[in-house]
């Protein structure tokens, strides 16, 4: 499933659309950036409430394709700029990390 397909399947708002529409294979849900650095897998999606540019730096480091920010957290401009520079998608959901992760898990396992 591509990022754009995922955004529409999960009803996510696309905050930063200057991304490469890559195939998503997995996801990782965490709000501790050192945990993301240690355990998230490349080509995955990060589900988090950490809406700031350091989350983008970690995503880029790990090779994550997209960040889903939960709970309609406000997204600062410098995060959007950093994501554009790194071509990482930033998607926004009004739902909690629990709900987004559940939907993501189901969507990625659908044949």
């Amino acid at each position, binding site marked *: 499933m591509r990022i754009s397909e995922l955004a529409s399947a999960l009803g996510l708002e696309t905050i930063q659309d200057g991304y490469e529409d890559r195939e998503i294979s997995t996801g990782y849900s965490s709000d501790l*950036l050192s945990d993301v650095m240690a355990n998230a897998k490349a080509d995955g999606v990060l589900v988090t409430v*950490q809406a700031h540019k350091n989350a983008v730096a970690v995503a880029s*480091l790990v090779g994550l394709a997209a960040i889903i920010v939960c709970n309609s957290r406000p997204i600062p401009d410098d995060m959007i700029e950093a994501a554009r520079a790194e071509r990482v998608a930033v998607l926004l959901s009004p739902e909690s990390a629990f709900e987004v992760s559940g939907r993501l898990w189901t969507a990625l396992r659908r044949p």
Partner: protein
Amino acid sequence: MRALADLHNHSCLSPCASLEESPSLIARLARERGLDLVALTDHNSALNCPAFAEACRREGIAPLFGIEASSIEEVHVVCLFGSVDEALDFGESLRGRLLDLPYDPEKLGDQVVVDADEGVLDLVGYYLGAALSIGFDELCAEAADRGAIVVPAHVDRPMFSVSSQLGFLPPGPYDAVEAMRPLPPELSRGFPVVSGSDSHYPEHVARRPFAVELPEGALDPSAAGSLLETLREALRSGRARPFWDSAARSGP
């Protein structure tokens, strides 16, 4: 005397700081920009403190030696000591408790140990930007037991702060809390509030110092008593005044 102090500065040892930002440049810029007291606080390490001590001696500016430690919850805490050795000992005690993350200097930045003449002594090969495997409460208690001035860093910032990671400021052995702007009472909880530059680039040095009333002569290298304890007393007795922007510095 009214002193201008800045207790939060990163050198080229911190992976996220500019390679230009040597301990000697911090000391020189601090003096040129009117600071009286300045601390070096790299992430989870004090290895550039020996160079900083010498650089401050040359510039004639009073130093403190510190570490900005990262708890397992990714809360940053500034821990300050009066001597290089105490800071190095604390850093050594943290080393084995840093989470072992893969470290790629190309992506994360170099971690350079230098001397006071900007000569490269070493490149640290493990990632200093990682979190420690110690909780925030335990980290603060341990630093306080070692005699440090303990200051939770940028408590009002949306990342790496007590507010972003814990949701509130728990009770603890703090001498002050550092903030970026005027704090709501639930985040200061009666602790003294200081401003801090959190400099990572030369242009950041002295951007957010605070003013503090100290006894005459307290900053002289020959002063009786320890500068750390004099500062602690001044903080705890409410003699520090934060500045929220550089324009306020020249005010009364």
